[in-house]
C-alpha cells in the first residue's frame, strides 16, 4: 500500500500555485495530481515519492492535509499495459470507483493508483497476475 497526500482547499485562485510553490521549494517531486472539486471547496490528491515529507511541509504551512492509503500497482507503460491489471481485477470481481494513472518511466513503467476500502484485495489480485504493488517511489 502507498501513502497518498490529500489537501483540503477552499476553491479560490492561488491555492494550487501556493501548494506547488511549497512543494517545489522543498524539492518534492509531484508524480501525479488529481483535483476533486465541489464548487466551493476541493480536495487535491498528490502522488509523490516523499509523501511523509510533503505532509510535513504542507502542515507546517497550516494547510489541512491528510494521508490516505491507496493501492499503487506498477504496470507496463505500453499499449495494453493496463489490460493485465484490469483483467485481474475483473477476475477477482473488484469494482474500481476512484483511480488514476501516471507514467513513471516513459515506455517502461507506469503506476495505476486505486482507492477504496478493498485495497488488500486489489493488491492480492494484482500479485496473482504477476504485477507488483509499489511500496516506494523513491
Amino acid at each position, binding site marked *: 500500500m502507498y501513502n*497518498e497526500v*490529500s489537501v*483540503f*482547499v*477552499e476553491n479560490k485562485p492561488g491555492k494550487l500555485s501556493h501548494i506547488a510553490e511549497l512543494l517545489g521549494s522543498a524539492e518534492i517531486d509531484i508524480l501525479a495530481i488529481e483535483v*476533486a472539486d*465541489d464548487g*466551493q*471547496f*476541493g*480536495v487535491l*490528491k498528490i502522488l509523490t515519492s516523499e509523501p511523509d515529507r510533503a505532509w510535513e511541509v504542507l502542515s507546517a504551512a*497550516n*494547510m*489541512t*492535509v*491528510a*494521508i*490516505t492509503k491507496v493501492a499503487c500497482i506498477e504496470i507496463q507503460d505500453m499499449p495494453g499495459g493496463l489490460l493485465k491489471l484490469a483483467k485481474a481485477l475483473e477476475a477477482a470481481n473488484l469494482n474500481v470507483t476512484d483511480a488514476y494513472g501516471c507514467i513513471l518511466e516513459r515506455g517502461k513503467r507506469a503506476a495505476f493508483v486505486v482507492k477504496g476500502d478493498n485495497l488488500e484485495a486489489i493488491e492480492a489480485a494484482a500479485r496473482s497476475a504477476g504485477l507488483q504493488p509499489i511500496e516506494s517511489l523513491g
Partner: protein
Amino acid sequence: MIDGVDKTGTFYEQMPRNELESFQSKALIRTVARAAQSQYYSNKFKENGLDVNDIKSRDDIVKLPFTTKEDLRLSYPTGMLAVSPMEVVRMHTSSGTTGKPTAIFHSQEDIDNWSELMARCLAMAGATANDVFQNMTGYGLFTGGLGLHYGAERLGMWVIPAGAGNTTRQIMLIRDFGVNVIHATPSYAMHVAERMVQDGDDPRSLGIKIAVLGAEPYSEEMRLKLQDLYGFTAFNSYGLSEMNGPGVGFECPYQNGMHVWEDSYLVEVINPETLQPVAEGEVGELVLTTLRRKAMPIIRYRTRDLTRVLPDECPCGRKHIRLARMLGRSDDMLIVRGVNVFPSQIEEVIMQHSWIGGNYVIYLTRKESLDQMVVKVEIAPGAFDGSIDTLRYRRTELQHQLKDQVGFNVGVEVMEPGSLPVSEGKAKRVIDERGV
C-alpha cells in the same frame, strides 16, 4: 468571610428572601433620591409628575419611568451623573456594538461594590485566594477586563492581567505560573484550544479548573465543547456596562441559570411591546435597576436582552433569582425571509459537530429580492480524513439540520482552519450585506 472581612458581601449573598426584599425596598428609595440629583432624572421625574416620596417600596418600581439606551445617548456626556465630578474615580463606555458608546461613571464606593460582586461571583464558582487567575480579555473602556481584575484581586487571587491576544504568551503564562482560573470570551477560549490542538498540544494539560466566559452570547453546546476540550468548568457570566459590566448575573456550581445579585439589582421581565410584566417564568425583556450605584444610578434600564426568570429555588440555597441563558439581545435577532433567527440557534446546531472548529460566520445577502443565508464553518484541525465524499456528506447533513432549525434553506461553506477572522474581543458572527 475572609480574614475576618466580608470581601464578597456574604451578608447579602446569604440573605433570606424576605430580608432581601426589604433591603431592596430601602435601596430603591435611596436610589431614586440619588437619581434625582442628576440632570436627566430630575427632568424626567418632573416631566412624569413623579414625586420621589411616592416611592416607598420595591413594588413602587412600576411608577418609575423606563430608561433606554437612547436616553443614555441623549444625556451624553454627563447628563446622568448624580454626584459631583470630584467623586468620580472612573468611567467606562459600552462596547458600541450597537452604535455610539454610552458613558458610565463610578465613585470609589461604586468600584468597591462592583469588586465585591465580582469577587462574590468568583468565590461562588469555587475560586479562592489560593488560585492563580489569568485575565485574557481586553482592559480599557471595556468593562470585562477591569471588572474581573478588581474582583479577583479583592478575593485575594494571584492576578495576571494578560489582556487580549498574543496566544503564545497566554499559553506560556498559564503554564509557567500554574494558572487555574481564566476569564475569556468563549470565542477566544476556542481559538486558543484550536491553536493548541493544531500544534499537537492538549488544552487539558494546562490544568485550568475554572473558566469565566462572557461578553458575547454563546450556546450551551459551545460551553460543553469548551469544557470537554479543556477539562474545566465553564461559568456563564452576564453583565452590561450600564449595570457596571460583569458581575450582574453569574452561575453557581449547579450551572443552571445565572443568579442575579438582587442586593444590587432589581429585576423585572417585561413584554417589550406592552411594557407590562410578563407572567411568572415567561420570556421577556430584562429590565434592571441599580440599587447600590451612587455616581450614576440607572432606573428600569431596558437591556434588550431576552430571558426568563427560572422558577423554583436553586439547590445551592441562594435566594437570589436565576435567569435563563440569554435568548439573544433583541437587536441581535435577524429577520431572514420574514423569519426571526437568533445567531445562537445556528451556533447550537454547529457546535454539535466535532468536525467543525469553534469559529463560524453567518453571511446574509440578497439575491433577486430573496434573503440568502450562508453559514461558513471551519473544518476542525485533524478532522480532515482526505475524502471529499466525507466532506460532502457532512455539509449536506449540516444543511438539513440548519433547515430544520430555521425553516428555510441555509447554504454551508466549509473553510480551511484559521481562514475566518478571529477577534480577541467580541466575536463578529454575523455579516449582513443585504443593504436596506
